């Protein structure tokens, strides 16, 4: 690039040199022409006034010792002419001797300036071109990096035009998008692996007890009564296993985005009623009253089936971890931009340090594990996922005396 610009510079210098030679030559010939004219006038004067010959030549010789045929002595001629003019009132035009150097300088200077200006424009154009090329190169490098899966080094185009800067911004966004996509893919893969491990782990325990019941039933040293008992036990285990499988299927479907939530404007009252009806029998068996406090109805944009599932999970926990003869209350309160669904129980409560962990997949509180054997720690995880995907939230609060209040919101 340097060699190229050197070459360019030499070109400009040569052009200027050519200009200087031509211009000087031109000016010189103009000057010669004028001087010849001057001499002609002197000769003409001498021809017209032979009586002045001596005087003119004398004057000439007085100013210049050189041969008067030499044309370099314009100054002498002019001085001589001036003297004669003074003496005889003779008017003559003189060559612009003094202005010659002025003209020459001005000419050379403007030539230089013009060359410089042309050179500057050329340079600027080339520089722009180079910048453009550089930007294109950066762009294509960036795209190549994208292809290789590197999304972090993105040209900023900081010194470029607005359009380029906008392009840079778009590239940056694209990079973020790709990076997020890549990360999500990786996460999902890991998640799937973890899910499979977790699920097989979850299935092991009930399967083991089922096997035990089966082995006991088929054993030799068992009475008929015992056999019946173990059979019933096995039946129970199978039922639990089925329930667990249902839960796990729901979980994995939601998790893998196999089910897209389809929020529609629908009555919240109906959804709450549906959720309550799902746990009603279980509550009755434990003599737990389930009350719903809801004034009027609200039309809320939500996925009816899965939101009912979300509420039912919280209600089920409330029933599961409460003692008999207590109460569970569902309260629906409209807020400004959300609707609040509270589920309040008088159950065992959640330890303070566990409050923020209960939404993790397969997490079960230590006291929950002690008190109630069955349960996979899936319900609240699902509930949170369902609500958050619809712009809602869930949080739990310990009540002062006993029990828990779950507060769920959905955007109005």
């Amino acid at each position, binding site marked *: 690039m340097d060699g190229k610009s050197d070459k360019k510079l030499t070109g400009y210098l040569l052009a200027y040199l050519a200009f200087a030679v031509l211009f000087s030559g031109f000016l010189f010939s103009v000057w010669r022409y004028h001087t010849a004219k001057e001499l002609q006038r002197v000769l003409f004067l001498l021809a017209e006034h032979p009586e002045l010959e001596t005087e003119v030549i004398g004057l000439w010789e007085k100013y210049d010792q050189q041969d008067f045929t030499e044309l370099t002595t314009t100054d002498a001629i002019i001085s001589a002419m001036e003297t004669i003019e003074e003496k005889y009132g003779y008017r003559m035009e003189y060559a612009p001797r003094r202005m010659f150097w002025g003209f020459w300088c001005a000419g050379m200077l403007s030539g230089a300036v013009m060359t410089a200006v042309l050179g500057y424009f050329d340079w600027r154009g080339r520089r722009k071109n180079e910048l453009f090329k550089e930007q294109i190169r950066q762009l294509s490098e960036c795209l190549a990096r994208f292809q290789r899966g590197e*999304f*972090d080094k993105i040209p900023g185009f900081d010194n470029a035009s607005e359009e380029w800067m906008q392009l840079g911004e778009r590239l940056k966004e694209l*990079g*973020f998008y790709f*990076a*997020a996509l890549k*990360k999500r893919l990786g996460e999902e893969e890991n998640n799937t692996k973890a899910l499979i491990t977790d699920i097989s782990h979850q299935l092991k325990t009930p399967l083991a007890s089922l096997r035990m019941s089966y082995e006991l039933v088929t054993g030799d040293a068992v009475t008929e009564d015992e056999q019946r008992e173990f059979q019933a036990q096995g039946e129970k285990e199978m039922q639990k296993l089925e329930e667990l499988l249902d839960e796990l299927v729901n979980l994995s479907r939601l998790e893998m985005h196999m089910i897209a939530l389809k929020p529609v404007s629908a009555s919240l009252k109906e959804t709450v009623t549906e959720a309550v009806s799902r746990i009603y029998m279980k509550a009755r068996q434990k003599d737990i009253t389930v009350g719903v406090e809801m004034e009027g109805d609200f039309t809320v944009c939500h996925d009816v089936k899965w939101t009912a599932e979300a509420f039912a999970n919280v209600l089920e926990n409330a029933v599961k971890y409460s003692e008999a003869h207590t109460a569970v209350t569902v309260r629906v*309160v409209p*807020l*400004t*931009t*959300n609707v*609040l669904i509270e589920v309040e129980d008088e159950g065992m409560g959640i330890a*303070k340090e566990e*409050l*923020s*962990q209960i*939404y*993790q997949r397969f997490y079960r509180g230590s006291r929950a594990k002690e008190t109630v054997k069955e349960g996979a720690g899936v319900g609240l995880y699902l509930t*949170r996922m369902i609500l*958050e995907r619809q*712009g*809602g*939230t*869930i*949080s*739990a*609060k310990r009540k002062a005396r006993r029990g828990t209040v779950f*507060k769920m*919101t959905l*955007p109005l």
Partner: protein
Amino acid sequence: MNTDIILQLEDLVKYYGSGESLVRAVDHTSLQVERGRFTAIVGRSGSGKSTLLHLIGGLDRPDEGRVIIDGTDIFSLKNDQLAQFRRKKIGFVFQDYNLIPSLNVWENVVLPLGLDSRKVDTAQINEILRKIGLEDKKNAMPSVLSGGQKQRTAIARALASKPAIILADEPTGNLDSQTELDVVSLLKSCVQEFGQTLVMITHDETIAQMADRIIEIEDGRIGGKVEN
């Protein structure tokens, strides 16, 4: 630089006082926050969580360490550059709302845009106000608004400049528990919808539970982390 990390704290240190009365407000804290996540910072009062948020927001300079937001080491910027960066990239929501009493809701919301002589996208602001439930309060003065409405206005103001990260310092400290729940749910769903990152200081366990990640601060250090 990882593009998923919007905010990175590197070994931040901020001490106040000296000798006997030395307060280690932020004591060698490092943290990474991913883009689009809701992080709650919890801790007792005096644990240094507010100081930490001030450092993150560039409102205060650390003694040591770096704060990198969206790839920019914010304390390498000159003061006026930092102020401009802050207005462009960070939205603040404070406990005391900080609304200008002589301006109405709309004017308060578009005020930060005016400071950078950015063009006001009327449709976008209207969308925010609609989502935030202040559509009919555009011309109301702050003095006639309830606490919840004031905080909504402050949230709309923070969202208006489309910042990459929103820093909220006990945003619901002055609100009753239902309004609190409403406002935080709103803030959460807004940042979710607009793809922003939310870092919120709170002492309220119930509010913290809503976050994707809970960071516990104890004596200027990170005590515990919970991921959800």
